[in-house]
């Protein structure tokens, strides 16, 4: 143990490096990627208007049924076109490609029934424009429903109760985990360095074991710095 400590303190610059670098890299990674931006909103389902929609399963809660119908709409280029029309910023990002927009929405928008009548809508994006896009999406969806069902009352299928807002992209727990893993990796690497270095030095005589190794008593240990310098003293 003492030898490992000796090595650690002798080469502390190197030994400490991984312990600093790995968590630093983890922090840098969290800051850089950071999970991007995530906009989130909650809508409240209007049960009577819901009946008009295409995919209704009576065993499901109103929220679950709404989520299903909204999800079905996501892949549609027509809907994507409507969202782009409502949000010029989004159209710019999508380079006016309905195909791209439909794919993007399909991939990054999720509808989750978070209560019997509440659907949470999130849009994960690496752009701060996630907010207006989600707003446009929530405005366009009822209009699409009305068009699909030829029933104007379908525009009232939900109302937005919590308008789109940014939420933390990754949870504190996750961040701590990544940081912890970085620290662990750093400590392991440092330990590896110290143990390899120690086994390398083990081949050189040291106070701790030279006596046992030679079977001779160690009569004195002359400290470092007490060497003679004959050449210089003679002049």
């Amino acid at each position: 143990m003492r030898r490992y400590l000796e090595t650690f303190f002798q080469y502390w610059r190197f030994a400490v490096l991984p312990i600093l670098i790995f968590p630093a890299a983890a922090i840098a990674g969290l800051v850089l990627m950071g999970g991007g931006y995530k906009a989130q909103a909650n809508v409240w389902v209007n049960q009577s208007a819901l009946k008009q929609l295409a995919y209704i399963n009576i065993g499901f809660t109103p929220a679950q049924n709404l989520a299903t119908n909204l999800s079905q709409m996501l892949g549609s280029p027509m809907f994507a076109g409507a969202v782009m029309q409502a949000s010029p910023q989004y159209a710019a990002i999508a380079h006016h490609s309905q195909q791209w927009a439909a794919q993007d929405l399909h991939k990054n928008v999720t509808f989750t029934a978070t209560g019997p009548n509440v659907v949470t809508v999130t849009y994960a994006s690496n752009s701060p424009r996630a907010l207006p896009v989600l707003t446009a999406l929530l405005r366009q969806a009822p209009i699409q429903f009305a068009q699909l069902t030829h029933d104007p009352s379908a525009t009232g299928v939900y109302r937005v109760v919590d308008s789109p807002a940014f939420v933390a992209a990754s949870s504190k727990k996750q961040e701590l985990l990544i940081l912890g893993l970085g620290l662990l990796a750093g400590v392991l690497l440092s330990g590896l360095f110290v143990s390899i270095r120690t086994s390398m030095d083990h081949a050189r005589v040291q106070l701790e074991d030279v006596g046992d190794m030679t079977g001779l008593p160690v009569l004195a240990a002359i400290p470092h710095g007490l060497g003679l310098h004959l050449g210089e003293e003679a002049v």
Partner: protein
Amino acid sequence: MAIAEHMEEAEEYSSPLSLPDEAYEVYRHLYGKLQLHPGSRAVVGITSAIRGEGRTTVALGLAATIAQDSAEPVLVVEADIENPQLHELLGGPRRGLVDAVTDGEPLAGVMTPITPNLLVVPAGSHPENVGAFFYRLATSRLPQGDGWWPAVVIVDLPPIMNYGYGPMIAGIADVLLMVTRANVTPTTLVREAVARLEGNRPRGLVLNDHRTYLPSWISRAG
């Protein structure tokens, strides 16, 4: 007659060999462990496995300490003739061990004092045949002659692993010390050197250039 000359000469020498106080204490401790009987006129040999381990440092340090603390003259003999260092103390080449042994003279003729109680015999001329010189030294031992001889003689021996005659020359010492350099000398070589000295077992080891990197709060904790 010789000793009177030496002591007179000693007055002329400034002391080129001053050790830090710390060093005196270390060598006092080492001297104590040697348990030399007063008046035994023991020859203390300082050897090591390989070069550069600090034989000359220890030989002179120990000699300077005994010379300062006891009233008795102490002699350092440089038997490491292929890498002479002591002439530096004397300001240039001098006749030394090689000359005395080759010419069959007593050592007293080539002793030079460097401080009042401390005399040195440098290696002297380089011999034509190092092997032959070492053989002669090992078999005839230090030429004491019939005259004066110091109370303590410390011999700066050649390193064991560098010379086939290394262990044999170490035989001229009554008490053998093996210097080894911490964190530098390969343990295998020290072990091998000790094995070669079979039959002339060193009294003990002197670990030179020892240092710790632990902060004092850890060292204190044990």
